[in-house]
């Protein structure tokens, strides 16, 4: 389903949550699709089933999945435009760091704005196909 990075400083728990979140947001996993059982996922990745269980619970708390007793865990319908607070916060933080570096590099405000504009333009053109 996905690979874990054993060299990452992120814990296995965080990696499982993030990977599944990404698969749901990128629609690799579709609404109402069943996630592998705790046993299957812990077996394939050779990780602690308690960690998988905890990750599934967190995903449920965040609204990405829902569980049905005895049947398993399923992908929730993610509404268009629904914004993930954590993702937003992390994105902002990363942008802040990048912008700071551009300032150090000696760029002015309007030059940085141009760069951002350019990135957005390229992205929207790419997404329109």
């Amino acid at each position, binding site marked *: 389903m996905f690979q*874990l990075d*054993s060299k990452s*400083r*992120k*814990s*296995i*728990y965080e990696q499982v949550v993030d990977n599944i979140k990404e698969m749901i947001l990128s629609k690799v996993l579709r609404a109402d699709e069943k996630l592998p059982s*705790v*046993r299957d996922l*812990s*077996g394939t990745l*050779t*990780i*602690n*089933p*308690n*960690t998988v269980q*905890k990750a599934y619970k967190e995903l449920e708390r965040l609204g990405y999945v829902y569980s049905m007793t005895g049947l398993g865990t399923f992908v929730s319908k993610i509404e268009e435009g629904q914004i993930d607070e954590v993702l937003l916060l992390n994105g902002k933080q990363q942008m802040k760091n990048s912008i*700071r570096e551009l300032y150090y590099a000696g760029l002015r405000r309007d030059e940085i704005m141009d760069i951002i504009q350019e990135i957005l333009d390229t992205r929207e053109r790419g997404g329109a196909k």
Partner: protein
Amino acid sequence: MITVKNVSKSFEGFMALSDLEMNVKKGSIYGLVGTNGAGKTTVIKHIAGVYKENQGLIQIEGEPVYDNSFIKERIGYVPDDLYFFGSYSLKEMGRFYKGIYPNWSQERFDAMVARFGLNPNQKLTRFSKGMQKQATFILTMSTRPDYLILDEPIDGLDPIIRKLVWKYIVDDVAEREMTVLVSSHNLREMENICDAIGIISGGKMVIERDLDELRSDIHKVQLAFSDKEKAEGELESLNILHREHRGSVELLIIRNRKDEVEALMEKVKPVIFDMLPLTLEEIFIYELGGADDEIQGIIF
């Protein structure tokens, strides 16, 4: 549920364990780590019912372990120092286990022997060291234990076999809520598989925590300020465990929640701010390397 309460043990005047406390939850994979000679094997031998404590209490599901065959037949113990009857083959040893352990599964034994690719008719003493360890693991897992106790089980096994061993373990934890207690020096592997960690030193428990909790409140932070004097005062509110200067960059090990640190940094506005969670290896060295700056200087 394994409970170790105020346990002390001395060998000819040497205190191997002193007032040790330890709690392993049912269905958990608990990693026991510590420096050489910290007492890991001694605790494990108490929990497996090999040693009797001088003082304190060792219980599994509320019952004392020592001399308790009802509990002991539900424990699977793979010791660090293996011992085999001289002339027994793996197959004969299986038959011996079958007579002792009521939950013995012949089907599983046969399947595992084939999977690990061991010759069941060869004498165990003629196996290599790594193969003997695999043989013991197969025998132990075939008793379908409720409590699996492993003393440095993976050290000395090749990566393919290690993966296979862990796979059998996680399957049993998922399927039957087997409880696992494992000691090892391979901290990266422990970090990836355990959900709870106990760090012992000098026969005492230093830290016993849920692994994710342990890692979420201790961080390595790199900082640099344009106005150092001003920032200095603000930093005092942090719980700083270790601090060193590398040129104009400050390296701190702090025990605070991530959001607390971030909120403070929002205020002091460092020009460099980089925060990483500590790995288990770093926590281990920090906690047990003591105040030895030379050791810590190498690591962080």
